[in-house]
Each structure stands twice: as structure tokens, then as C-alpha cells.
């Protein structure tokens, strides 16, 4: 059980790292949204899944509900994160920020 938890945690961390590195490395605002939107979401899914699993160590009703709450948070993140990303992207489009295309300078 602990092993699974640790595995998921580490996976989550890897995703998070990817997200952070991606945000730094990608050339423009639109492409930066990809790691920010996806990797972070996935990272939190994995990590929170792991934590909720760990929380079930001592199985009680209370702990189970707590784990459920963590899952609820995940669900919430899954619903809100793409929406937020979409909001940002939409804002960028309306603000008139042209997407980076191959061959442009980084910005």
C-alpha cells in the first residue's frame, strides 16, 4: 500500500516538474498553457489520489469521508482547470496575442 502511495506521489511530482519546466521552456504563451493546463492537473490528480489512499490507512468512516473530499477536490480541479485554461487562452486571443509559429523568436 505504501509502495503504491509512494509511486503515485513520485509520478505526480514528475508531472508537476514537467509542468514547471514546460512553463519555463515553451516558447510562447499558448504553448505554455499546455503543460500548465495538463501536467498540473494530472500531477494533482496523482498526488491527491495517493494522499487520499494514504489517508485510508486507518480505515474509519471519518477518514473515508476525508478521502472522498480529496477526491471531490480532484473532481473540482478537473472541472475548473480546463475552464481556467480556456479563459486564459480566450483572453489571449481577444487581447490580440498572435500564437507562436515555427520559426519565430521565443518570447
Amino acid at each position, binding site marked *: 500500500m505504501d509502495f503504491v502511495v509512494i509511486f503515485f506521489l513520485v509520478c505526480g511530482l514528475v508531472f508537476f516538474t514537467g509542468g514547471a519546466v514546460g512553463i519555463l521552456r515553451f516558447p510562447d504563451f499558448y504553448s505554455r498553457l499546455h503543460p500548465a493546463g495538463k501536467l498540473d492537473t494530472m500531477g494533482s490528480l496523482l498526488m491527491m489520489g495517493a494522499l487520499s489512499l494514504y489517508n485510508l490507512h486507518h480505515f474509519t468512516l471519518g477518514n473515508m469521508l476525508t478521502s472522498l473530499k480529496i477526491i471531490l477536490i480532484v473532481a*473540482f480541479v478537473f*472541472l*475548473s482547470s480546463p*475552464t481556467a485554461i*480556456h*479563459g486564459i487562452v*480566450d483572453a489571449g486571443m481577444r487581447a490580440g496575442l498572435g500564437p507562436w509559429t515555427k520559426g519565430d523568436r521565443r518570447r
Partner: protein
Amino acid sequence: MKAAGLLIVILTGGLLIYATADFPPWAYPQSPASTHVSPRYIEKSIEETAVPNVVTAVLADYRGYDTMFETTVIFAAGVACFLLLRIRVEEGPEEQLFRHSLTGMTIRIKDGRKAPSDLEEFERIDAHWVPQDLIIKTVCRILIPFIQLFALYVIAFGHHSPGGGFQGGVILGASVIVLAMSHDLRSSLQRMGEKVNALLCAAGVLIYAGTGALCLAMGENFLDYGILAPLFRCDPVMARSNGIFMVEIGVGIAVMATMIRIYNNVSSAGRYDEGL
């Protein structure tokens, strides 16, 4: 200015750092702050108020009077924002935009002219009109009830877990703000009009102060909830718990309404026609 600022900052900072030398080490369990007054709160709160969350117990009972004024501060901020910003739309030079719902045509009505007579077909729109984004709108629509329920949960469970009237109230207010942002200000105003909101503001604080005054009226000191026991049909300790709960509800209502009020005023610059 910058140099003066720097000088002042260095002087003040120096004074403050100088003073830290006589502080007890950070997080030292035997420091006076941890041994003089607070142990009683921790050790007696369940006994005396039946509230496990000591912060809530202290907030709403031992130092409930502070919290009443804290809520009043928020209330005052709401009133001040209203007083400062609110302008009746008729007053300013105004250019109203109306959109014909069927054709999507936009007509512009300068100040002084009458609005279209059959308003069913025309819809007031914002000056910077953007079509409401489908995704944001839909997702927010779905999320808002859950946010609200969560907010109510936070208010209700302030006794047992972190949270309470203030936090819940803010989240509740935020849910309405989300509505105003994802749809538009007018649709949030339809749900919670300016007047209702203002009345709720005052009502929330009135609940708080009224609870206190009720204790006074029943012959005990102000905010001494123990005397309310006959009212709740329980023992004085539980009465304290319930009193705290009533107070938290008041705080929640007031904070919610005020947050909405400040948002409405700030984001529409007092015109209440279009928000963020």
C-alpha cells in the same frame, strides 16, 4: 522620496530587529504568550462552550465582542464603498447600448433619449460587449451551487473544523461574484438586487449584535450566551455553542452581502450596469 523612504524603512527595521533580541525564541512552548492567557482557552473551551475548534470558541465567545466589531468593520467598508462610488445611472453622461435579440443589431442611445419602448426584444448590453463564453458560463453555472453549498457547510461546521461565518460568507459572496463574472452583472443583480443586498448587510450584523442584545435583555452581560439556554432548551454550555452558531450565521450573511456589494460597486464604478 525614495531616499527618504529608504531611510525611514531602515530606521524602522533597525528598531524592530533590535527589539527581537529580547523575544523568546520562535515557537518556544514556554514563552509568555503561550503560558499566560491562552492555556485556559485550550483547556476549557470544550468544557465551557462545547466547541472543539478553539479559534471559533475564542472568536465568537471569549472575544466575541471583537468579532462583532470586525463584522462591523466589513459592514462599514461596504457602506463606505457604496457612499463613495454609487452613482445613479441617470446622473452621468450615459450612452446606453441595446441589442436587438433577434438580429443582433446594436443600437446606441445617447444620453437624454428614451430607451426603446418594447424592451422585451431589446437587451441592455455592456459597452465592451463580449458574447458570454459558453464554456465558462456553463462550468460556472454548474459549479456555483456546489460552491454555495460548500460555503454553507463552512459556516455550519465552524465549530468542528476550520472555518466559520467569515470564511463561509466570503465564499458565498464569491459564488455570486462568479455568477456576475461568468454571466454579467445584471444577471447577478437579478438574483440579488442592490436593495436586498444592502438589507442583508445590515441584517447580518444586526443578527450578531441582536444576539448580544438578547442576552442583555434577558438579564446577563452583553454576548453572554449562557443565558439563552431556555430559548434553545438546552444547558448553558450548549447554549453557548448555539449562540456562537447564531452569531456565525450573522457574520456569514453580513460578509457575503458586503463582499458582493463591494464587488458590484468597484467593478462597475458605482453604475451597476456592467461589471468585470
